[in-house]
């Protein structure tokens, strides 16, 4: 029991070189940062938007870089690094390596369930077997494809000032084909 520190000390047995684990974790963090930088250089589109007219969304860089999707590669690498780091923390900091089998009986089902949720949600939420209705994306596409013109239509000034939130009054076919401002984002 707790009044026997010596027995306890012996029981807490495993002497982990925490500093080494710490070094490994730092190294892995740097690696994921480097991977990100490499991705920026190679993919070119992950963060640095080459085209100022481009929408503020990621577009698939596959076409630009000859069919090779750097984004997915980098994503895979950084996630693998994250998993490695998590394993280090679990095994050494949380002492899972030195616990009995019971810990695996508890952890493994949890991990399986945790992976099962996104996996089961994927067919429904992530992949769409139907056409997704995304008004804002449609509108954006419209704005991009249509030539610029300025209809000087009279406006209804009362609208929008009625205290309600006047969002998306022209959901699909906008009368306002202004292009996104260049370099205007903060």
């Amino acid at each position, binding site marked *: 029991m707790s009044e026997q520190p010596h027995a306890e000390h012996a029981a807490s047995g495993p002497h982990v070189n925490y500093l080494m684990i710490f070094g490994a974790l730092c190294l892995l963090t740097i690696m994921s940062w480097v991977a990100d930088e490499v991705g920026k250089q190679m993919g070119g589109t992950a963060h640095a938007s080459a085209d100022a007219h481009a929408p503020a969304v990621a577009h698939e860089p596959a076409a630009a870089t000859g069919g090779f999707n750097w984004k997915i590669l980098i994503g895979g690498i950084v996630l693998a690094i994250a998993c490695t780091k998590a394993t280090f923390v679990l095994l050494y900091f949380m002492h899972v390596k030195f616990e009995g089998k019971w810990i695996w009986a508890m952890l493994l*089902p949890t991990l399986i369930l945790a992976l099962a*949720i996104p996996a089961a*949600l994927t*067919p429904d939420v992530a992949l769409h*077997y139907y056409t997704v*209705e995304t008004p804002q994306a449609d509108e954006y596409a419209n704005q991009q494809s249509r030539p610029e013109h300025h209809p000087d239509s009279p406006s209804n000034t009362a609208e929008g000032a009625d205290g309600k939130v*006047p*969002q*998306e009054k022209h959901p699909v076919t906008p009368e306002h084909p202004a292009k996104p401002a260049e370099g205007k984002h903060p």
Partner: protein
Amino acid sequence: MSTHAPADTAHAHDDHDSHGHAAHDSHGHGHELSFFQKYVFSTDHKVIGIQFLITTLLMLMVGGALALGVRWQLAYRFSTMPIVGQLVFANEGGQISPEFYTMLFTMHATVMIFLVIIPILAGAFGNFLIPLMIGADDMAFPTLNMLSYWFMWPAIFFFGLSFFVEGGASSGGWTNYPPLSAIRAAAPGSQDGQTLWLIGVTFIGVSSMMGSVNYMTTIINMRAPGMTLFRMPMTIWAMFITAILQAFALPVLTAAGFMILADRTIGTCFFIPGGLTVNNTPTTVGGGQALLWQHLFWFYSHPAVYIMLLPAMGMVSDMLSCFSRKPLFGYKPMVYSIAAIAGLGFIVWGHHMFISGMNPALGMTFMISTMMIALPSAVKTFNWLGTMWGGNIQFTTPMINSIAFVSMFVVGGLSGIFMAAVPVDIYIHDTYFIVAHFHYVLFGATLFGCFGAIHYWFPKMWGRMMNETAGKIHFVISFIAFNFTFFPMHFLGAAGMPRRLADPYNYPYLEHLLPLNQFMTWSAIVMGFAQFILLANFFLSIKYGKRVGRNPWNANGLEWTAPSPPGHGNFDILPVVYRGPYEYATPNLDVDYFPQTQYVPVEQRVNVAHGH
């Protein structure tokens, strides 16, 4: 228990701090507890269990009253309710408005599920029975246990409060589907009442989470010497697996609840699709998915269906074996089938969503996994029948309730298979067929199991018996009225009557169902009032019941070796377990039961085994 506990009680109050259970039995001795410590903010698992039991019985009456409101409307639409009508809906001329009708069924389900069925099983019986049946002095974390009870009250408060805020209580159904629940303008009940509902459910979630961590720790780590896993009574197995289900499914609902709460309050858009206009409100921005909620919700709520059933299965197994005076037929298959039901229970949630526009590939997967649940369920049913077969059956109140459990479970289970099949479900989804199904399982099975369990363990709680005659009268009335109320719902469903309609007879094809609905309503009223017999029997027996000793049923479990009612620390003699709990009618014993703690010296064991 371990009486060599160290004297460091300084941190015994801190749950994170308890180095072993040992620290806990040092309180309670040596100083008198005040009334509040003893009966209100008690950390004794027995008191907490009884607190849960009484609270849930009261909530049962509240939920039943809400259900009677629903039934009244279905039988006598928009006519003044007798007595209550003028009190509650005076400004509508005593009528139930369609909006209020939706609130009634939503809150009926909410109260029954979150405040009755789940807490009566896990909270009341789990708390009372787990330490007693495994031979522990208390739960692993008594303070956490107390908190898990008191976290129920904010939920009760918020649910109650929601009726009095503008727009009234939540009216989106207990499933709380967005956009009805996510957009304030969607319905009157989608205003503050819905927010309060979500807060209440979050409290219930925290309460259940604390309870389940406590149960798992207690069952894993605090069993008496000799109580190996496969000597545990089925009740404990069921409670253990229920706790696992709860611990790993519930956090998902809690998280989803926070998401929908954020959607409602701080403008996130997890579940609100973009470009949606509801009741002339501004168009929504964003791009979430309403279907996501259904997935996350049912990821919890389908396992919750088993949370609402498995403990009753366990308790019924114990009662059936005891009153058949026979060992439980197929103990290990029973354990494995409970585990299988729980495991499958995690991967069948999509069968609630067949007509939601879900990916057909998922529909097929979920249909198959759902069908597979029939296998372990059938194993259990046949084992119960096998337990009773050829037994020396004693028709006590707990026994007849348990038999009702088995038979009603069969009816509810069989109708479940209809809905598991996608093509059939497309027709009967959201009709009264499903209402019949889940009432057969939740009321017919679980509640009858609970009625049995109340009568069975009552002597352990109070040292007195409940009145057998009153118990049987209560059973007969409830059972007949229950079947008269819910069996016709199968026909309503087959006739295509949708659930959740305040006035189904608006549609000519449903007009002819009115007389049947009136009959069901009167049955429901009889059933509702029959529960007063139970309440009266329960509360009067506490005071006037026949006094009994430790083991009135001649049962084997560890709990029957403790005094009735057990004092603080439960056991006066340290229990040591030598065998499983179902050794009834062992040949060549003087009595037909063989308690788990009874030691047989080696030379006699031979005699027992070979029949000399």
